């Protein structure tokens, strides 16, 4: 496996090998799928839309609906206005969503289609909406596209209000329906009035009933996105992921945000709950405090299996930061923290976190790829690898225990229903990591050393 990867690291200026990121539009599509009765629309060649739907269906094992402007060579010469016009008419005629969320592609961006102008010229049926965002594939990553799509919704829909509606806006970040579900559960348990945006819990984890609903009952409603403009405050989870929409809601509606890390692990979940409590005036419930205690109980009980273990973590920036934080809380030692998303804020936050725990030999890099991670691991090995499916090649090549977390996980089931966030999510992570490490210990143990009790 990966036999062509040399141990010697040479500098690469231009060649990306085995990327740890993908392009903006797929993030935009995912964000739009978290809006109730919304049709994501890809303004570009039809291949983009096909790849993105495929990518999302492979991760969630769910239908990922989206339409395309199906650019031909002619559209590239004359602009995509005519294709968009036809598309929007057909989408409302045939699929009847309440809102179409258009995102651009590298093609329509390079041509320079002015989506503001094109949308103004559309004939939109009464009561229906078309919004857009710009997602040039040659900037940022899928994480950027996710944030941009959220900003697009806010820009078109959120309404500034002189009086606060008292609700707390929660931007969950680029996470799974299982995470969004857990965030809502915690807020509900405290009795907090909130708006979760976007919300794929109920759109990308739907039950099978024999009756397919193109627009399932989940998703943030258009009305809720409007109301975000009158929210008391926004909790923007993911200091990198949710920056763009947080800035947009401030600009458009003068609503303040607090940027928080993904609530993965003890401290980050504490922060999330305390912020939620402070802003809403609602107490953190006994139920949640008990869960916290249970989590710590687990961490103390099992500490010996995590302590000093060296770990490599790859994935989206806020996910890697969250996972690393919990690893540190378990007494593990992050050795590599890599993200493909080009954002140096990641490196800065990683260094601050590592410093707090006195870890000095961890390599934290943004704008990196899995080829580089593999080379690094060949030079200095780790005990555990955490990341998306693509990391499985490295795990196999280096025979290192591997835990799947983040995006995309295309080769396993159930994960998208389960949380990483909150105390319950941390318990799950502790179980996943503990099992990986302990299964390895069992596998490698000589017969005389196989432990019945661990």
């Amino acid at each position, binding site marked *: 496996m*990966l*036999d*062509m990867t040399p141990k010697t690291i040479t500098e*690469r*200026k*231009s*060649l*990306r*090998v*085995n*990327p740890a*990121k*993908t*392009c903006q539009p*797929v993030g935009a599509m995912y964000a739009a799928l978290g809006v109730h009765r919304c049709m994501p629309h890809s303004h570009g*060649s*039809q*291949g*983009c839309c*096909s*790849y993105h739907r*495929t990518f999302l*269906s*492979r991760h969630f094992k769910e*239908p990922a*609906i989206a*339409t*395309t*402007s*199906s*650019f*031909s*060579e002619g*559209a*590239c010469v004359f602009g995509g206005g005519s*294709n968009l016009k*036809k598309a929007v*008419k*057909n*989408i409302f*005629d*045939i*699929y009847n969503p309440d809102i179409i969320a258009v995102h651009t592609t*590298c093609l329509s961006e*390079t*041509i320079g289609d002015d989506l503001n102008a094109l949308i103004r010229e559309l004939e939109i049926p009464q009561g229906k909406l078309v919004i857009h965002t710009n997602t*040039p*594939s*040659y*900037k940022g*990553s899928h994480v950027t596209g996710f944030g941009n799509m959220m900003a697009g919704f806010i820009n078109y829909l959120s309404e500034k209000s002189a009086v606060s509606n008292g609700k707390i806006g929660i931007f969950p970040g680029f996470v799974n329906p299982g995470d969004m579900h857990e965030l809502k559960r915690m807020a509900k348990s405290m009795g907090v009035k909130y708006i979760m945006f976007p919300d794929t819990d109920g759109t990308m984890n*739907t039950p*099978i*009933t*024999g*009756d*397919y609903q193109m627009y399932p009952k989940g998703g943030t409603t258009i009305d809720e996105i409007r109301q975000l403009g009158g929210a008391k405050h926004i909790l923007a989870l993911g200091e990198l992921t949710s920056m763009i929409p947080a800035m947009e809601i401030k600009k458009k509606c003068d609503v303040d945000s607090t940027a928080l890390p993904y609530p993965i692990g003890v401290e980050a979940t504490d922060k999330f709950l305390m912020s939620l409590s402070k802003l809403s005036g609602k107490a953190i419930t006994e139920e949640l405090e008990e869960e916290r205690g249970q989590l710590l109980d687990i961490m103390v009980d099992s500490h010996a299996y995590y302590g000093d273990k060296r770990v490599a973590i790859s994935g989206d920036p806020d996910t890697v930061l969250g996972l690393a934080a919990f690893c540190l809380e378990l007494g593990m030692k992050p050795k590599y923290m890599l993200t*493909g998303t080009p954002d140096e804020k990641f490196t800065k936050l990683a260094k601050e976190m590592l410093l707090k725990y006195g870890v000095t030999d961890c390599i934290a890099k943004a704008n990196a790829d899995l080829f580089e991670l593999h080379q690094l691991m060949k030079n200095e090995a780790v005990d555990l690898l955490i990341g998306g499916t*693509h990391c499985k*090649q490295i795990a196999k090549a280096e025979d290192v225990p591997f835990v799947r977390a983040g995006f995309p996980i295309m080769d396993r089931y159930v994960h998208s229903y389960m949380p990483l966030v909150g105390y319950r999510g941390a318990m799950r992570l502790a179980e996943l990591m503990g099992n990986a490490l302990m299964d390895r210990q069992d596998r490698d143990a000589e017969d005389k050393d196989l432990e019945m009790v661990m």
Partner: protein
Amino acid sequence: MDAREAVLDKYSGRVFKNRKDHIVELDEAGVPKEIASNSRSVPGLMINRGCCYAGCKGVVLGPLRDTVVITHGPIGCGYYTWGTRRNKADAPDGRNFIQYSFSTDMQETDIVFGGMKKLHQAIKEAVEIFQPKAVMICSTCPIGLIGDDINAVAATAEKEFGITCIAYSCEGYKGVSQSAGHHIANNGLMKRVIGSAKDEIPKEKKTFRLNILGEYNIGGDGWEQERILKKIGYEVVAVLTGDGSYEALTHAHTANLNLVQCHRSINYIAEMMKTKYNIDWIKVNFIGIDETIRTLREIADYFDDETIKKRTEEVIAEELEEIAEEREFYRNKLTGKTAGIFVGGSRSHHYQHLLMDFGVKTVIAGYEFAHRDDYEGREVIPDIKLDADSKNIEQITVEPDQQLFHVALDKARFDELRKKNVELEYYKGMFKDMGDGTITIDDFNHYETEKVLEIFKPDIFYSGIKDKYMIMKKGVPSNQLHSYDYSGPYACFKGSITFARNTYLSISTPAWNMMTPPWRTKSTLEGTLGDENYA
């Protein structure tokens, strides 16, 4: 209202006008019907088609294991084609690039100032790190617009690094589907790779050297075909392009016969190799038990060699013997079921035969990106009018290479084989095997898929991942025929059993019987009048 009218009913004027010619009901087998195909999709319809890049890089070039294929563009396209198609490859020398994804990961400044320097540097780095036999470059959408001259970069790189470097302008917006990309990839391979080793044609009469064209080794299909063919006594020179290699392709001109599995994606090369090297091609089908037998007998008939013919029958008997029990089991389980198939440009035809082996009738079939000849047979090719989108795809012509020209099959023998319905230089298309009220949809979309599911209520529906989960949410089992749901091989005798097993498991998994919660049909609440639970 018949099925076709019911599907079209919801469409407004312009969409109706477009779609009506893409949907054909087949009443009687053998009655020719015309279908509109290989034309632009209607914007806004949720289609399954991909793009030109997907056809070129994803389908044809991607499976070459000894070649570094660099995607020139922003990161997405290269990322999505990384390890997702299941074109398996096994390099005996360990030099396997299939596990890798290479891209120039273009950034905004590259779009503004041009990406040629970056591409050149990327090739340099690839050569220094990986020392590949060949580097291929595939363009994505923005490249054509910003005007990067990738051919010039490739030519410079060839000289500078002493490797073969071939550029493919397969921007996503070209053509109307993946199909344009197949054609572009075919052209590039024909111009630069196939036959480039120039080795002499073996002169001895009795050589049985084959190429398998249009076989991408999904789930190991190509390996299964090679196993059977080698067992009979054939030599497989090159597979295009499943588990293929640049190296093998350079010798492909030494084969005596080209087997064409996927007609849509590779007929161009088959035709050009006939013109240039006088190598006959024959349309084969290794999907399905009876089809595999037919195919093997026809190949033997082509070579007309007694040893080969005898060995063919022995191998068929051996393989049949091995699967006999399971074949009977699944035939019993599946007979009488109905199926729908929406996939690609060849498989919807191939798999109808395999389903028939197990008594399953295909009532709905459609292609994503086929042309009229794939539906109606190659006899319609002279009547196909090229539209602007097709005209923009380069058509290359090749000249006979007198040095490397094969001895022609005797004309009388050729005619005799054709008379026996051997598809020599011919493909009959899908329609001739359909009829009896079945329906065919070209460039099917989400809405039409939902509609035909409701009308025909098939027991199982084969498609791809984009509609698989929608179909299953409707209560219909669905298997992927692009990825074989991560199983396979499905080819030849043993593959047929794997396919039948997967089909049977999908239909019979216990969860289907538990979808309705028991409390929906049997109340759990018992109470008396005035019970506070009912207040």
